[in-house]
């Protein structure tokens, strides 16, 4: 079943690539978990929102800005967009059944996808990322600088987010609102706006994920679709309401899928996604809440 020869060098490279893939999934999975935790909504538009902001970055860079100049601008736009979407599109149906809200996010995904095609066209584009594509020698193994950069940025983002949630008043308010919105109102928290803040943060996470992955794959309107699926899988794997789970799940999934795809001939590259699905399914049978999720025990 194994294809090709096995060398430790290549294994290390595959591992690195897997970690890098996993870091991207983790970022998007974190966005999904944040929205799910606070609003119990699965945002099917997360990927398209990320791609959209990446296109904006591309446009800005096309007008002469450097990556790192455009970066904070795009994040600000993403944040505003996320907040706006929550307030304008989600708020009207916040009392509606979950299926309705899911369909609204699906509609949003379609809308954004179409809009991207209309504004920028469907052709593939090169996206010049901030990291060079050369490789450096890590203990005898050539590893791409870009991969290292992507992982570092993702780690940095997760750390920042963790600090935000643990230390700041707003972060506490967001956590409180997702745990107990009624009591949150009783202490004076404007829960609606806090949840919009959650969407804004999620949009920022998506924007970063998009700008990280775009140099690796080509930038086109459908860029994030497969990645979103892997991100869903990672989020479910880690437990839909656990941010730690999203990160761990993402990395685990990225590494496992990359190694399986390379070393198990049967899976190759066509069956990577179904393989991921199977793994998750098996895990869920054993741990219905995912790795770190809470299983809600209902007392009769």
């Amino acid at each position, binding site marked *: 079943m194994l294809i090709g020869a096995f060398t430790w060098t290549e294994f290390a490279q595959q591992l690195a690539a897997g970690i890098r893939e996993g870091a991207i999934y983790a970022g998007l999975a974190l966005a999904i978990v944040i929205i*799910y935790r606070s*609003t*119990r*909504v*699965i945002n099917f538009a997360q990927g398209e929102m990320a791609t959209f902001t990446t296109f904006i970055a591309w446009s800005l860079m096309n007008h002469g800005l450097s990556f790192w100049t455009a970066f904070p601008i795009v994040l600000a736009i993403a944040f505003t967009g996320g907040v706006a979407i929550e307030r304008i*599109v989600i708020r*009207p*149906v*916040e*009392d*509606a*059944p*979950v*299926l*309705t*809200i*899911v*369909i*609204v996010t*699906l*509609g*949003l*995904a*379609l*809308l*954004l*996808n*179409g*809009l991207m*095609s*209309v504004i920028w066209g*469907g052709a593939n584009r090169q996206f010049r990322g901030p990291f060079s594509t050369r490789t450096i020698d890590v203990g005898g193994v050539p590893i791409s600088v870009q991969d290292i950069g992507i992982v570092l940025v993702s780690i940095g983002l997760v750390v920042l987010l963790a600090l935000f949630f643990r230390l700041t008043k707003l972060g506490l308010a967001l956590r409180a609102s*997702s745990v107990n*919105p*009624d009591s949150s*109102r009783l202490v004076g928290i*404007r*829960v*609606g706006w806090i*949840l919009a803040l959650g969407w804004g943060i999620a949009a920022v996470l998506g924007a970063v994920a998009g700008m990280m992955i775009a140099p690796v794959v080509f930038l086109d*309107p459908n860029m994030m679709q497969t990645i979103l*699926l892997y991100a*869903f*899988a990672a989020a*479910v794997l880690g437990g*839909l309401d656990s941010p730690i789970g999203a990160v761990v799940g993402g990395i685990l999934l990225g590494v496992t899928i990359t190694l399986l795809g390379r070393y198990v001939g049967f899976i190759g590259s*066509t*069956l990577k*996604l*179904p393989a*991921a*699905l199977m793994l*998750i*399914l098996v895990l*869920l*049978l054993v741990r*219905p809440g995912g790795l770190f999720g809470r299983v*809600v025990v*209902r007392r*009769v």
Partner: protein
Amino acid sequence: MKAKLVLELFGFAVLALIVAALPRFISDFRARELAIVGMYFIALLGLSILTGYSGQISLGHGAFMAIGGYTTAILSVDGIYGHQIRDLWTIPIAGVIAGIAGLLVGVPALRLSGLYLALITFGIAVSFPQLPKKFDHLFGGTTGKILNLAKPPFGLSTTTNNWMYYLTWGIALVLLVAASLLVRSGAGRALKAIRDSEVAATSSGISLARYKTMAFGISAFYAGVAGSLYAIANAYVNPDVFPIILSIYLVVGLAVGGLDSLIGLIAGAGLIYFLQNHADTVAGWINHLPALNLDPKQPGIPSMIFGVVLIVVMLLLPTGAGGLLRRVFRPLTGRIYTRS
């Protein structure tokens, strides 16, 4: 009670009459369109049993349609041991195989709740198109398989499209009756009990496992039949015939039409067909608004239109046309989203 039954029988008779008589008044092409609407209707009927009656969300029923379609294709083209099977007879076989697949999915689905199940089924929908590419000797890979053109049996002298219309809606009516009987039976009551409160149902001795997997199997059977019919009408199958988005369309059709209203399901089926194939008409209507000038052929415009329509419809009709969404999903939702 009796009066209600009589009324429903009457309504059914009217529907059957309309179905039977309609082709006389419509063009051949329209008959084909209505046939395809009928196939979506069959799939939605099954999905409504799953989601509307046992409360399980599936975002992957396109996969079951694909199973049905491919079964029909393989059996009628390759046959068993070289013996080709007439496309008509493959329909029930396709349904059964899809139904078995549904049972297989239904078992692990028991351990998953609400959105976890939705995501896993979504994963199935996405993963499934990869399988024909992998096992291409059986499934024909990306080119797929080409079937013989559907011929009316017994040398009946109708056009192919009319034949498909009658075949589809004939089967649809039969399956509709079957679904009604199911809903009225003990099994149907058990499903409704499960939907309203799993805890209460279990305490009354209802086996969740049995009925929830049964619901999955039945709904998959319906989807398989629909897929089989679609393959016959299309005269070929390949991964693009049952794309990922089909599963989404099905759920959308279900949600917009309302979960168990008959008219709603037909409307939902119509909506799916309409949005898939008539984005240009919608664009034409929109172009009547001042200041908007959309070219429907431009890639991206159909998606945008579909997306906006979805959002607007759900904003206006959050409980779906049939109004049952709220009743079904209150027990499923851990709602915390209240106004502030």
